């Protein structure tokens, strides 16, 4: 056992951080965010219907990320990918979360691991893939996406984005960098589908052709096994990884502010109340880290549920505490704190809610005589 990062993993993390600092520096994040602001006349309460499509995806950046291998980390080298494992993707996504990189990263990464005509190009960043499931969570970046990965209870389908868009309506997304669409209630059974055949990713068999109209379920059937179930778990884990990155970043932001902001004649970080807020933030982030990394290694459903639960909580609460440490400055649009909070809210609603994770973990407590250590 050596539950620490390998040198290669450290290098990957450093590389990803540097890539994002180069390709997606803070100025670019602010351009996405403030571009939306400009359109909204400084007032998102205004009723123009298209702010929901704000924060349009930067295709050039997406291709750069694809070229850098971000979406092909798990694609076998024989298929042109990087040939790494889930832990490496988790580390990369943690960095993406840290940098608040916008875009349907999770769906694109999952689709890159599938074969099939519609999702082809996902690994290279040529095809932008978003996702939907039956939880009622909004679909992110639908207007910018080419296709939608639909993770249905027992089937996986790939659907052209414009088909989904026909029965979706834009929301005024709370996160200015993540446009969201609400699906019409009926819109979870697409009438035209591109469906996988339930085999593993990138194994050469490929999803069924789009002309195949019938529903086909995963070979392994519904429940916790089967392709759809596995992809949902991976989606939850990769979302948790982003939450972890955000939670760590807000610790840094809070600590940095606390060191430099002076009130009552000294840095506010010298006040115990602020120190303790920061300490609790670190505890949340590091607890979440330990389970997110472990789930990446074990891929166990219970571990993933724990990872999503604690990472959601760490991201949301750390952003809140970071805002508190920032005081009035944290309440401004110019500070990045609110972007972490809003993105954390969006991600917390994706793939596995806190309630669902708690129920899964509770069920795990009584399904085995001995908890797995």
């Amino acid at each position, binding site marked *: 056992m050596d539950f620490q990062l390998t040198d290669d993993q450290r290098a990957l993390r450093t590389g990803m951080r540097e890539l994002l600092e180069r390709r997606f520096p803070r100025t670019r994040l602010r351009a996405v965010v403030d571009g939306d602001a400009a359109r909204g006349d400084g*007032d998102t309460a205004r009723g123009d219907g298209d702010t929901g499509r704000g924060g349009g995806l930067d295709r050039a950046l997406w291709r750069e990320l694809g070229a850098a291998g971000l979406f092909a980390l798990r694609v076998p080298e024989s298929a042109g990918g990087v040939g790494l494992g889930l832990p490496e993707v988790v580390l990369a996504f943690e960095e993406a979360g840290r940098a608040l990189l916008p875009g349907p990263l999770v769906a694109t990464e999952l689709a890159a691991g599938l074969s099939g005509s519609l999702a082809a190009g996902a690994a290279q960043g040529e095809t932008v893939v978003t996702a939907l499931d039956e939880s009622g969570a909004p679909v992110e970046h639908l207007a910018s996406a080419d296709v939608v990965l639909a993770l249905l209870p027992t089937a996986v389908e790939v659907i052209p984005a414009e088909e989904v868009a026909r029965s979706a309506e834009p929301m005024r997304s709370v996160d200015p960098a993540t446009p969201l669409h609400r699906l019409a209630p009926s819109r979870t059974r697409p009438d035209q589908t591109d469906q996988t055949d339930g085999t593993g990713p990138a194994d050469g068999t490929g999803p069924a052709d789009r002309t195949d109209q019938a529903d086909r379920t995963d070979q392994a059937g519904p429940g916790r096994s089967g392709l759809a179930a596995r992809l949902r778990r991976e989606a939850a884990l990769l979302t948790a990884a982003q939450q972890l990155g955000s939670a760590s970043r807000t610790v840094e932001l809070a600590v940095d502010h606390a060191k430099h902001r002076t009130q009552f004649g000294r840095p506010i970080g010298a006040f115990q109340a602020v120190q303790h807020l920061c300490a609790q933030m670190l505890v949340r982030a590091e607890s979440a880290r330990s389970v997110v990394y472990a789930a990446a290694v074990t891929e166990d459903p219970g571990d993933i549920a724990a990872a999503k639960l604690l990472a959601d909580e760490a991201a949301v609460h750390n952003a809140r505490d970071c805002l508190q440490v920032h005081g009035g400055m944290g*309440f401004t649009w110019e500070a990045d704190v609110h972007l972490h909070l809003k993105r954390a809210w969006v991600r917390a609603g994706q793939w596995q809610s806190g309630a669902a994770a708690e129920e899964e973990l509770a069920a795990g407590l009584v399904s085995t005589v001995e908890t797995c250590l």
Partner: protein
Amino acid sequence: MDLTYTEDEEDFRHRLRAWLAEILPKLPDRPHPADWPGRRAYDCGWQRMLHDAGYAGLHWPEDAGGRGATPTQHLIFLEETERAGAPYVGAGFVGLLHAGPTIAAEGTPEQRARWLPPILRGDEVWCQGFSEPDAGSDLASLRTRAVRDGDEYVISGSKIWTSHAEIADWCELLVRTAPINADTPKHRGITWLAMPMDAPGVTVRPLRTLAGTAEFAEVFLDEVRVPVGHRVGEENDGWRVTMVTLSFERGTAFVGEVVACRRVLAALARTAQANGRWDDAVLRRRLGRLAAECAALWRLTQWNVSEAQRTGGVPGVGGSVFKLRFSQVRQELYDAAAEVLGPDALDAGQEWVADRLSSLSYTIAAGTSQIQRNIVAERILGLPKGR
């Protein structure tokens, strides 16, 4: 422990209710939040209606043009207007609730005659220039400087978190007239001035909050000249002058907000019943708990108002206690709202979502929860001064 209202109080309530029922349907449509001139017109129009009906300056002393109402009558007024959905005090806030009472308490007869009537009639709008970028929780460390030049002060510096700056006629401004040094407490050396917002050198820049709106502004002051006659109280005594208005508040500062919390909570419960979330015991019990918290906030309010009524307005234990609990409950309420809304909690177009974003400032504004706890610990519990 008497929670029944006297005949006089009930009578006051019924007359107010009747008037509200008659007048509210006649109000014009509410302006868009970004339409500042429209908001000024609307808010001032409402203040004029209150004035003409005899409700302006309800809690002000009669010799200042007010109605000299008891704290309980003020409570009833705030409760009934909120329940009836009457306009919020809006642009009149600073004039009616802070600058006006300050002038009433500390101004000269001439100052009172000049500034108070237009506030009560809704003719003039005031804003507040207290906070600065480097003086937030530590307000007394403010650095905006005023230098005496003959009959004028010449003021340079900047202020932040100023509401209604775009449409205000006057700003109640705190400035530093004596430098901060080690020998005197920094609360000394601050002076209270009434600054005309159209004076040369005043620049207003909207400040966008995380809610995406620009409810606040920054105010930049570049050698702005204000007559010495606009000073209320003595030079260097502005901190004390500012604090005297605390006793005007008499426990009623958040009455409307508490009533609103209870209304939101009831609406959340109905929404949850409609969308099926009510069957989730975790959420349902959470709403039940919030009902207890809201009840406590209301009873604390009644407690504080009753105390103010007895003591003649001196703030007691209740204010900081109330504020701490209220900030917390209000944020919990909107977190629960997000649970009730489900995926719609991500829609900034939803009223509750916008309110949720605003509620994030509650543990920060008007003294962070950290500062409030210090106040409770040191001033109420008598613990040694924290370091």
